[in-house]
């Protein structure tokens, strides 16, 4: 088991390195850098001016070297000019002595995430703050989505073809067919607009960042949860119907176990193995939903800064965001693997 986790972690780190390198490569392509130079300098820069700006800010080096520096495994670049020393790990232009005192490595491994050009602030603090907002949102999404999806799935799957099954399956198909930007729009239209006039909820969740209430926070949570819920519920249902037709359920039934106990004691655990993995693998998609919903409801969280960073060519911030999201996704995958092994005695004890 220990070895298994170790191997998985190894693969996970390799994946993270590959992914961050891809993001790094894409964000550091020349047109992006050129745009960066022009936004930082001025828009009428000549090509030579752009090149010299890039060189003097360390962007002229090969991508692999830059990646190493960003990661913190290669020493940060330094440049000696007439005014003094400057470099990746040095703020502004300083004298040679001061430069010698500065850290040699300053990448994300050292906790240096860089500086956001969009927010004019330290990347780490921005990401940290926004992540908190989103974490809060996600927590409630999961609290709503997972139990209701499992209950729907189990109820539907326990008697295949019954009325409960058909009605609940219809509901879950409907929710999987409704992406967040559709359900969000419909919810806003129905529950918040003056045209319909129900006005039960608030159309934006901006105020929820400081003071989340049911009124301003429920719709975004519901919007994300609904889309994922149908999918998980259908998985659970499929798994549950399969288990309910298994021979060992018949054995239990013919042992005289009551239906209630068959479902709870015999079927449930076996039926939950598959959906568990699904829930964990939902995270990359949930992130999608987060971005849409945060945009739609104007909730300034992680998804919102993603859009801002990407829209404003904020390279350092974008890199940090991808590191965080890749990390979240990979960790959930790891948990899903471990949980699968734990839930399934056939694999655990072999």
């Amino acid at each position, binding site marked *: 088991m220990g070895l298994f986790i170790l191997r998985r972690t190894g693969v996970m780190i390799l994946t993270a390195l590959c992914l961050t390198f891809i993001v790094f490569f894409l964000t550091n392509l020349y047109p992006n850098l050129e745009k960066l130079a022009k936004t930082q300098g001025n828009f009428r820069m000549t090509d030579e001016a752009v090149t010299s700006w890039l060189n003097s800010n360390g962007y002229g080096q090969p991508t692999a070297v830059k990646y190493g520096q960003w990661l913190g495994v290669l020493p940060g670049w330094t440049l000696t000019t007439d005014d003094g020393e400057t470099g990746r790990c040095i703020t502004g232009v300083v004298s040679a002595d001061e430069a010698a005192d500065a850290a040699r490595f300053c990448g994300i491994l050292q906790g240096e995430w860089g500086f956001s050009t969009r927010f004019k602030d330290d990347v780490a603090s921005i990401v940290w703050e926004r992540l908190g907002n989103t974490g809060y949102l996600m927590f409630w999404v999961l609290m709503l989505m997972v139990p209701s999806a499992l209950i729907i799935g189990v109820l539907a799957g326990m008697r295949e073809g019954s009325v409960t099954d058909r009605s609940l399956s219809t509901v879950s198909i409907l929710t999987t067919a409704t992406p967040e930007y559709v359900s969000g729009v419909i919810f806003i239209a129905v529950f918040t607009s003056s045209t319909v006039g129900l006005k039960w909820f608030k159309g934006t969740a901006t105020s929820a960042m400081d003071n989340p209430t049911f009124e301003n926070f429920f719709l975004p949570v519901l919007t994300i949860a609904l889309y994922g819920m149908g999918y998980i519920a259908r998985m659970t249902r499929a798994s549950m119907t399969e288990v309910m037709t*298994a021979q060992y359920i018949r054995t239990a039934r013919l042992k005289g*176990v009551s239906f209630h106990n068959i479902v709870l004691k015999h079927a449930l655990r076996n039926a939950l193995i598959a959906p568990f993995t699904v829930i964990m693998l939902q995270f990359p998609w949930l992130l999608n939903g987060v971005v849409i919903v945060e945009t739609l409801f104007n909730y300034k969280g992680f998804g919102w800064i993603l859009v801002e960073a990407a829209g404003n060519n904020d390279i350092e911030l974008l890199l940090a965001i991808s590191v965080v999201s890749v990390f979240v996704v990979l960790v959930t995958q790891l948990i899903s693997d471990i949980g699968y092994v734990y839930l399934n005695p056939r694999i655990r004890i*072999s």
Partner: protein
Amino acid sequence: MNKLAEYDGPILEIDKLSISFFTRLREIPAVMDFSVSVQPGEAVGLVGESGCGKSTVALGVMQDLGTNGRIVGGSIKFKGRDLAEMSAEELRDVRGNEIAMIYQEPMASLNPAMKIGRQLMEVPMIHEGVNEKEAHARALEVVTDVRLPDPERMLNSYPHQLSGGQQQRIVIAMALMSKPSLLILDEPTTALDVTVEAAVVELVKDLGKKYGTSMLFISHNLGLVLETCDRLCVMYSGEAVERGSIADVFDEMQHPYTQALFRSIPLPGADKTARPLVAIPGNFPLPHERPNGCNFGPRCDYFEAGRCDADDIMMSDVPGNDRHATRCLRFQEIDWNAPIQVGEQKEKTKPGKVVLKMDNLKKYYEVAANALFGGGATKVVKANETLSFEARESETLAIVGESGCGKSTFAKVLMGLETATEGAILLDGTNIEQIPIEARDTKTISDVQMVFQNPFDTLNPSMTVGRQIIRALEIFDIGDSDQDRKQRMLELLDLVKLPRAFADRMPRQLSGGQKQRVGIARAFSGGARIVVADEPVSALDVSVQAAVTDLLMEIQREEKTTLLFISHDLSIVRYLSDRVMVMYLGHVVELGDTDQVFSPPYHPYTEALLSAVPIADTSIEKEHIVLEGDIPSAMNPPSGCPFQTRCRWKSEVPAGLCDIEVPPVRQLETGHQIKCHLSDAVLDRMTPVIKVAAE
């Protein structure tokens, strides 16, 4: 508590039961007008081929027919109470408490995510409301009763940690937890190896006596029913066709189907040249295409038009016998003792020159010690150890062994799907053991072909039959044009006695036997000279088995093919093979002519194997040899002789030699060799396992 005390009539009375399944299109009758009764302490066998409705009867008794199934007529009385009129509550009380059931697939019938102890304890806890401690004690007791080693540890395991035989014992234990008055066994040993099956059957018989349980034993195997039951009921196409005591039905059968069934199974007297099997002509009717009158009519030798196909036929009692009834109008007119009309007797073919020679063939696999978690450690699995034999032209060499004996690995190496680790395979004197199939020339490939076990899997479901044969012809470079190959394909269909119209059919439109015929046609399409038949008939119904076996023999005679017949069924091996090779855990433990292998001296394993095979003949006396335990895993074989863990002769070998050393190959007579430490004196003491009782 004794549940028999208050009631002394028949335990189970099924009267004119009819069960149908309802689909959107039509009603499909599965069981019609079926009656049987089970007296206290009696074991009743229910015999029939697949699809005859025998399992439906069992589920009907359990009142568990699913949403589509319904009892449309008749009654099922358990101890005088009609099961169909019980409320769900009452029914739950009966299930598992008074009627228990044992199924075909032990692995599937145990909950994979629940410890065995829990699953056993559940029964008394539900039905008798006992506390956990007592339930645990009871579970321990029953697990000891089913002779499982280390009961405590068993209770603490998950099902997947046990072998198939152990799982089936657990299922039996679970059924016996509440000391039921009726035990329904639905093909309880089909998924098990022969020697394990023998032990389980023995156990069921003993426990049935010990607990005084009545049994309804469902099986397709007449031999097994003979060994376990007091009475039996033969079913055909949803109806009971004959019912009576074992002795009456086996020795004075009164229904043409029963007779045909007995003639199509290879009993010890059968011989492929002198007394060939008689296959039942035609096919099993589909449930919605049953003929008028007698369901067996179209396949019956005694069919009389206008009479047998007029009205529904009722069961009638056979005078003079004990509760013996048959569903045949003509049973009193038929001369049941008339000798079998022997078809054409065939000339026994002489084996020709040696075509295939194996010399010290070894195949080892390296596998990761722990499949999921990976890791560096690997284990060597010795799938084949020093395999040596020769096979001649038009000879049938049977390879006998249970699961894990290495027969499939051997086939793979021969076919070139794997390459040998050591040793040589000579095909016409050329080494082929290191040539993988991609590197073999077309001639070699088409010379060595294979017939597979599972008829439902052997054909590609999305290609027509004709197309699949033509593809084989294309790949074997036969025929110059598409027209040519099409002609050849039709001829091949003729060869395997299938109508030419089948060329355009999809495999799902064919029955199991027909698919197997196509498989044979495909194997012979390139003029194969060596055919490996991997249990080609074991998945087929008894009545079809004979026809397919005969077909194979016939083609072999015509084409002078060398047939390597892999099987675990010694009856059929004795019937058709010229020489027999017995394998156990990768070793050839015995090799010789059929007569040599089937008569003493035996290798101890062969002896046990012979004893384990059920034989459907009341005149046969068998010595009972029950092997302890299961077949060891090939991943972790025992030291010394592979068979030493289960050998009953082990004590006869001095100095514990069996534990230490793999026995050498010993020549007994010409061509007869065994791998055993037993001295000649001990071997000479062996007596035949199967004896025909003196007439």
